[in-house]
């Protein structure tokens, strides 16, 4: 994936006015923002893996995963990595100060945590953020879980100390590259285990290496969320878009909180599906025109670039592409 900044003009998608309550330094180049609603009301409950869109002005929208405690709905916390060559999103966030107003979206989830008996969490750098609420949920439900968290150096690894302190070294393994070298993925992943899901978030290179190793695992065991090193957040296009169903001859609007698959099924058009999570390839659909944003774990890099097919259970229209025409 390339840059995730979605430089579209913000439109009617439901937004919330918040105020920045606190700005904390979470690590070198990482700040953590605590947000409260301007009207003093609590936020809607959200699920582990969820993110918000942050509207940074001049049409710049970025996505950041939530990492505050699930139960504390009086605030939301996001972690933001500042990257020098960023196109502006993370810099703009770093320039925000306590007390400034901000516009965000309702929390949405593109990286939902499925119920299972065991979990292995793997974080690369700022990819730790969506995993924090997952860990909290796993711990609370008494699941068997482990976190392996890698980063360039301890100083750059946000929330590492806090996690270690809270859950202890039996659960949490911190691997700083300047001390211990890179993460040894073969050792970390080990062998597939029955009823164990892997949730991984981090830079593309790390996720690619994990995907390669998990190809011999049960289909659906691995769940990843991709982001580029310059900013956190799957490039969730934050606008609703239209899907024209070429065979059926109808057009459906896909709102921000629904998948194409759900929206299409709602108007009575059937699409063969199985996992509904971008994992199995069953819902693969031909694209007649328009540009998709792929969010599945099935298509190869070449497939993604060719842009001829997409997995409609998870993938969406790319930012700036208001209409997809699909062979449905």
């Amino acid at each position, binding site marked *: 994936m390339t840059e995730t900044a979605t430089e579209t003009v913000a439109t009617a998608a439901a937004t919330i006015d918040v105020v920045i309550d606190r700005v904390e330094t979470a690590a070198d180049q990482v700040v953590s923002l605590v947000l409260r609603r301007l009207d003093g009301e609590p936020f809607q409950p959200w699920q582990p893996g969820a993110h918000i869109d942050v509207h940074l002005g001049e049409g710049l929208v970025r996505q950041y995963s939530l990492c505050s405690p699930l139960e504390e709905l009086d605030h939301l916390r996001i972690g933001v990595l500042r990257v020098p060559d960023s196109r502006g999103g993370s810099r703009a966030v770093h320039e925000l100060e306590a007390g400034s107003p901000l516009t965000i979206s309702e929390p949405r989830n593109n990286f939902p945590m499925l119920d299972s008996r065991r979990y292995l969490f793997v974080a690369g750098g700022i990819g730790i953020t969506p995993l924090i609420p997952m860990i909290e949920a796993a711990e609370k439900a008494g699941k068997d879980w482990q976190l392996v968290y890698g980063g360039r150096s301890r100083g750059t690894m946000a929330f590492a100390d806090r996690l270690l302190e809270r859950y202890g070294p039996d659960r949490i393994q911190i691997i700083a590259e300047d001390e211990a070298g890179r993460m040894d993925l073969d050792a970390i992943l080990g062998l*597939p285990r029955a*009823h164990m899901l892997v949730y991984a978030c981090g830079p593309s290179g790390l996720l690619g290496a994990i995907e390669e190793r998990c190809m011999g*695992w*049960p289909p659906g065991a691995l769940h990843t969320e991709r982001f580029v090193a310059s900013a956190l957040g799957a490039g969730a296009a934050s606008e609703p878009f239209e899907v024209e169903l070429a065979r059926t001859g109808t057009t459906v609007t896909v709102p921000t909180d629904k998948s194409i698959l759900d929206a299409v099924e709602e108007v009575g058009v*059937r699409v*063969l599906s*199985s996992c509904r999570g971008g994992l199995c390839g069953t819902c*693969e659909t031909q694209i007649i025109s328009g540009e998709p944003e792929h969010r599945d774990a099935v298509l190869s890099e070449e*497939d993604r670039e060719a842009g001829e097919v997409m997995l409609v259970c998870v993938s969406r229209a790319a930012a700036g592409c208001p209409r997809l025409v699909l062979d449905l």
Partner: protein
Amino acid sequence: MTAMTHEPAVLADDPFDTANILDPYPFLARLRDAGPVSYLESTGSYAVAGYQEVYEVLTDFETYISSGGLGPRDIRKDSGWRPPSILESDPPIHTVMRRALTGVINPGTVRALRGPFTPPAVELTEELARRDRFDAVTDLAEKYPLRVFPDAVGIPDEGREHLLPYGNMVFNAFGPENYIFQQAFAHGDEHAAAVMRNCERENLSDTGFGARIWDRVQEGLITGQQATLLVRALLSAGVDTTVFGIGNTLSVLARYPEAWARLRANPKMARFAVDEALRVESPFQKFHRTVAVDTELGGVKIPAGAKVLVFIGAANRDPRRWGDSADEFDLDRSASGHVAFGMGLHQCVGQPIARLEMEIVLQQLLERVATIEPDGEPVPILHNVLRGFESLPVRITAA
């Protein structure tokens, strides 16, 4: 785990006797109703036939292992008739073999097959549409996969006649060494030798899946012997299953003229018809797992070393999962979640290929055939673990 365990229901029925093979569903319904886990006296194995238990056994691959073989004997103790395949392995051996295979067969590589897989289906169905009756199994289902699949793997023309008999051996060996087994193995050595020859790199074309598997040897992922075994796995698991998949789909559709008419109006629905047909008439009906450690399932204790017979075809008709109409084909049902291709670690690698073949044949037939109906009783095949027909006479009207 609670201390509340009970003895399994003990059944005298033999799932491998002729009557239960030719008409399996009454016995399977009895088995499901007997309780979550039963014990079969005839085979000395435990049995699961409900969706929930079958799902649990398939997904808990640490407790219910495959390296004991998919047949009734424990091939860890008593070596099998051939070196174990990917299907008969556990992690870590399975992990590397599966990684190699998934890199070669995946939605992207299979998508490219639609082109080459279509003309043979056009040709076969054009010819059949000129007749007023034909045998949907011998004239179509048995022919089509052999026209396309061996080319996709890249094996030579010579020796292809051994593929169906070899597949027949491999799958029948997942049942007991009964009369059916012996028939299948009658010329076993000859078939096995011919198929093994075709798994060697020098006998594979440069463009097929076989050669791509051997590329993984170059990359250091697998050994040459593992590459041979993986090509062998494709050749043994990829032909019979799909033949039965096509035949079973047509056996169902010939009985549902309304569904045929709807499919003709909307051929895009062929994929749903195939999926639902795989649910009601699952080609691969049952196989064994071996219990690795003492365990408990559905309140029944099962000791380490025991064999569990997993009835996936019965799980696909479990009314607790599919409702009261579970035995009926219903084009409007969402069959997703069926376990006809297995579930979890060993879930069928060839699934996208099988689906593609079945969809193409059905779409081509729908284009040319206005109505299709049974022309006499179908003849089910006597097979230990696969469900299908030896003959399926149909009467048609051309479009």
